[in-house]
């Protein structure tokens, strides 16, 4: 018998994350992420090139229609750089929610047969999206250099990590919440893609936040977790100052999503095996 290992299985469990346990299972994050990436590009001819091709093509099409044809303002940036900076973050958010939101259902056979901290599943789905992000990020840097974008390097060191932190918090919070909800209510499988489609157009991805003149509407707009992330990300490369109150609202909203999402997930996770 191994000394020191002793744990209790009871009906009521703690609703906060057991970091020690997650640390014990840390390799599982790696294996789930690794598997998803492998499987994703198996039997594709272009393989990982798709990771580059997808954002580049989207940026090209958006630039053509919104930048050229409709003359959408772009906060003083070349439109391709502007829309790329938004899409870069948006894609992680949307891919995370799409896959992580369904992850409890796709992993139901495993959940019913073996125990491990359930939160590893949605978080690994987000890590897969993060790997794509890293590749697209390099492309973004090249595009920025090509367009001679002026960068404030001091701001960059503060704002880019904050933007990525907000992006991840929003993704994890909402994904966990939706993952738990869709175990119970299968309706969310249909709701998620639909809402994401709309959400792209109410996020400042293809147009700058400044186009919304009405100040009251602005506050509602800022509740979107991606608002803060995208604004932070663009801050070092544009001259437009941040709207402090709106950004604050977005940060608070994002962190609330993170806490509540994980709380709801932990609260319901014990019963996933019974109802999934």
């Amino acid at each position: 018998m191994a000394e020191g290992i002793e744990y209790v299985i009871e009906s009521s469990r703690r609703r906060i994350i057991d970091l020690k346990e997650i640390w014990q299972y840390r390799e599982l994050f790696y294996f789930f992420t690794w598997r998803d990436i492998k499987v994703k590009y198996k039997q594709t001819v272009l393989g990982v090139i798709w990771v580059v091709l997808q954002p580049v093509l989207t940026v090209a099409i958006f630039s053509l229609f919104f930048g050229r044809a409709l003359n959408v303002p772009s906060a003083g940036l070349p439109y391709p750089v502007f829309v790329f900076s938004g899409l870069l973050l948006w894609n992680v958010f949307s891919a995370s929610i799409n896959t992580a939101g369904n992850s409890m259902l796709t992993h139901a056979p495993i959940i019913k047969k073996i125990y491990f901290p359930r939160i590893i599943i949605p978080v690994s789905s987000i890590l897969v999206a993060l790997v794509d992000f890293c590749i697209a990020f390099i492309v973004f840097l090249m595009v920025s250099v090509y367009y001679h974008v002026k960068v404030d390097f001091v701001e960059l060191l503060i704002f880019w990590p904050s933007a990525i932190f907000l992006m991840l918090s929003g993704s994890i919070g909402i994904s966990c919440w939706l993952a738990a909800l869709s175990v119970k209510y299968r309706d969310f499988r249909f709701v998620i893609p639909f809402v994401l489609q709309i959400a792209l157009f109410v996020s400042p991805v293809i147009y700058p936040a400044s186009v919304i003149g009405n100040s009251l509407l602005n506050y509602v707009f800022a509740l979107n977790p991606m608002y803060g992330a995208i604004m932070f990300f663009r801050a070092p490369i544009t001259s437009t100052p941040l709207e402090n109150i709106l950004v604050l609202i977005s940060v608070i909203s994002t962190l609330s999503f993170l806490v509540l999402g994980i709380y709801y997930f932990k609260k319901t996770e014990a019963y996933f095996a019974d109802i999934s």
Partner: protein
Amino acid sequence: MKPILEIQNISKRFQINHQGVPYLSLRDKLSTLFKPAGKKEDFWALRDVSFEVYPGESIGIIGRNGAGKSTLLKILSRITPPTSGRIVSRGRIASLLEVGTGFHQELSGRENIYMNGSILGMKKREIDKQFDNIVDFSGTEKFLDTPLKHYSSGMQLRLAFAVAAHLEPEILIIDEVLAVGDAEFQKKCLGKMEDVSKSGRTIIFVSHNMESLRQLCTRGLLLKTGALEINSDIDSVATAYLKNRDSRSQSMSSVKSGISIEEIQIYDDEGRSIESLTTYQSIRIECHFISNVNRDDVTFAICFDNIYEKRATTLWSSFQNKKYSVSPGRFKVVFEIPSLHLVPGEYSMVSYIESRGVEIERIDNLRRTIVSYGAKDFSSIPSIVHGSYLENFTVQIEKDVKEYY
């Protein structure tokens, strides 16, 4: 010594939703918002189960389908929480409720070993160390880099069990995974599990196969409709289970043919009524019939079916060229076997009656019986993997035998 597992008053309740679906839709939720909640029925899958397990013990859990075995295993492996009660565990638990959990058809054999191993709780370092043993045990080295979807189901199974067999937790929970695979591989698995238990680890094992339970376990728990009925040594629990099952599955009366079995009894050569049999034993089977009709050209048969539902042997009166005329009243048919040649194992007895070459009555699951091997301290005991029929033979070495080159 402190128990490695303490199971204290575990109960598990499921609520049966009479709409029939286990999951909910938002519409259901909304529509019941203003109505009193629909009919929900409580179902207790487990009720107040308590027992203790000491380090190094191997415990077999026995019960009919729906007795709560799987629920108990799921609670022990933390897949689902108990409704009440608690479990104290003093060791790492690894559970094997299914072979190949997390296998992905697109990944290669090598990749699946890592994936499956880590889901089962192995560290990458441990998998690296055991990798060659796992591949060796599974016998799939040629196909390591082939996607799993091109494997035969037998190969997938071997690979899956090979990974699981190399887990090294303090407590191993196994659910009937041995019920699959060919006989040779089953034997290998059982052997591996014996090694595991001999190395001092604790095993909790659920199976319907009494023979492998007896071979592997020392103690047995009999579950019946969610409650722990017997907690004792494996032999008496297995016997109680089989006896219990017989009394339920008998459907002896029949109106169809007018002839029905009232009772079946087995006696040893000293005339004692016996429950379980021994290979090479001399036995006498008496079937008591009652008839309401006149029939002629009637023949009687008793068959033994093994656990794979394969017929092991048939004793049919026709084989002895015996045909009878039956008139209303009671009578008994007696079969005498001077030496029982069945391999040790669990058998189900079946009886049928023919009249003028047409089957007029058939009783499946007439009785369950266990055949064991007389000498327990032999180095090898025959089992179902050696065939159904055990020849009565002798073996000796004679002088002046040429050496084998």
